[in-house]
């Protein structure tokens, strides 16, 4: 590890190892500017727009988490709706007991992270495809158990209490800011995780699991960590969903449609790239808004596009951009700069 992180004194004159071709600073400034502008949106745009953006925040958070699972850790989970549902129900239960739903949101995320531990213990016994269906069965089981409690609405669900005191305009704005905060924290967490030592292990797993294992990478532990983080992230998105819908209904929050949306957005945008989920979410929102009056058609189109992309452009739209332009918005790899400093000659994603 020390070999690659020690960038202060180049071992050979003229060679330099950097995180990206350009300074990372402008990316940071750019990201900050985007976040500040987004934070001002409730003052600038109609509430219809912020409502759509809240939906985008939910999908982006989910997609970033699914990307971490499937794109890096090699865990194709089709049961992430378990965490969406649990997050929503954590908020509902806390709100019933008098807590503010907004204050309950981080607690819900934390609770989902903790709930991920026993769930990992169950599903990690199976591999790849069978792991996928096991997560699905687990999500169905959790929904069936929650439906048994009539105090939280049973099979029909119930409205979310605790927000009646807020005026509609304020509620929309608060929900929007909560969504923005969840997304920024989720993206930052993914970025920090992938830049650190875990990122090296995960990138190694992504590229070749057997080689990663034989090099001494603790694949099992890395996967457990990713499963927990993804659980917390999807839980936060579920909590946000409950707040934005003001209603928690078991069949809606535990719907496999959530996993379909996060998976398709990730695959189309670019599996195994941090930028991919952002692009994929944009595609998702555009398609969904255009085809809004045609019921499930947006999901059918998204699914077909995702199949084609998975087969013919494995790194998705961002992968195509990256191949041709070598751009990274979130530099997590290392670049080797040679004396002639030919930008394209580089070590990608060490």
């Amino acid at each position, binding site marked *: 590890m020390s070999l690659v992180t020690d960038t202060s004194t180049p071992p050979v004159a003229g060679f330099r190892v950097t995180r990206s071709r350009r300074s990372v600073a402008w990316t940071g400034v750019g990201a900050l500017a985007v976040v500040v502008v987004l934070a001002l949106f409730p003052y600038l745009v109609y509430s219809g727009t912020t409502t759509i953006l809240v939906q985008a925040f939910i999908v982006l958070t989910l997609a970033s988490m699914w990307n971490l699972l499937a794109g890096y850790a090699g865990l*194709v989970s089709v049961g992430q709706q378990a965490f969406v549902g649990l997050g929503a129900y954590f908020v509902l239960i806390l709100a019933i007991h008098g807590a503010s739903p907004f204050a309950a949101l981080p607690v819900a995320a934390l609770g989902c992270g903790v709930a991920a531990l026993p769930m990992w213990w169950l599903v990690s016994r199976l591999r790849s495809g069978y792991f996928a*269906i096991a997560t699905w*069965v687990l999500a*169905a089981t959790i929904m*069936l158990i929650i439906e048994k409690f009539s105090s939280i609405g049973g099979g029909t669900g119930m409205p979310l209490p605790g927000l009646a005191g807020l005026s509609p305009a304020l509620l929309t704005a608060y929900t929007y800011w909560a969504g923005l905060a969840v997304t920024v924290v989720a993206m930052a967490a993914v970025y920090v995780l992938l830049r650190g030592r875990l990122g090296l292990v995960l990138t190694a797993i992504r590229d070749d699991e057997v080689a990663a294992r034989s090099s001494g990478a603790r694949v099992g532990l890395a996967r457990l960590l990713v499963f927990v983080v993804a659980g917390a992230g999807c839980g936060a998105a579920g909590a946000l969903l409950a707040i934005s819908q003001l209603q928690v209904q078991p069949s809606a929050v535990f719907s496999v449609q959530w996993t379909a949306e996060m998976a398709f957005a990730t695959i189309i945008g670019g599996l195994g790239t941090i930028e991919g989920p952002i692009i994929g979410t944009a595609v998702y929102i555009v398609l969904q808004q255009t085809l809004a009056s045609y019921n499930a058609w947006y999901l059918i189109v998204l699914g077909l596009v995702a199949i084609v992309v998975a087969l013919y452009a494995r790194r998705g739209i961002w992968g195509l951009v990256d191949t041709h332009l070598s751009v990274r918005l979130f530099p997590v790899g290392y670049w080797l700069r040679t004396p002639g400093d030919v930008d394209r000659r580089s070590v990608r994603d060490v």
Partner: protein
Amino acid sequence: MAWVNAIIQGVLTGGLYALFACGLSLMFGVMKVVNLAHGDLAVVAGYVAIGVITVTHIPVLWSFLIVIPVMAVLGYVLQRTILQSALDRSVITTLLVTFGLSVVIENGLLQFFTANSRGLGSGLALVEDSFSIGPQIQIAYLLVVIFAVAVVVLLGLQYFLSGSKYGRLIRASADDTEAVQLAGADYRHVFGIAAAVAFATVALAGLAYGMYSQLDPTTGTDTILLFAFAAVVIGGLGSLWGTLLGGIVLGVAQQIGAQINLSDEVLAGYLVFLAILVLRPQGLTARRTQS
């Protein structure tokens, strides 16, 4: 007596679940493809049968002679095209592609045929009639027939895979595609044939469920895929007869659950599945631990 009835019903529905699981097991055993669209394809078979019957007015059972070959051909074509290209890339790609297929099929059915559920063969003596043993036990002829069909299918698969020349070729391709290729056989074609056989059983599963209960667009995942998977894991991965045992255990667990509380039928099955996953992750029949 109610408990005896629950167990008998459970064992018989176990045959249906084993039928669900055959295709999933076969696709995984030979191609290492976990087909997440498995259940949705079974529902498609049921819908095709309903369509064929509505258009041609042929008897229900005769329509099976059309639907099963059609699904087998579909299996061959899907395997030779998108499933094989996904396999050539990675295992994860096969999961992404079959999950995509599953969502597309389910929502497509929803879009074109609404969420209404439909049954197959209502009014048919085979579907409606039952016989009784004593005052409390009533057994539907259909369940007995489905159980028998499941056993015949499993026996047939067993014979086909271990006894026939083509079965040996399939097992050889499952073990080592390159060696098969060197020996002069086209493993892609062999995989296509295996997929055709698997899809024929998938069609049979969809048709059987359509007669036993009702099909709607979500049946494919909610019921067929998840129950098939639970049966496979309970019985032990890669064992055909284990699948039957797994189906029976799942069926009995569900019926006993329903006996305790009518709405707990599905949950009881899943809890038994999770218990097996914890206590015996290799399944009931497998000797070696899963590698």
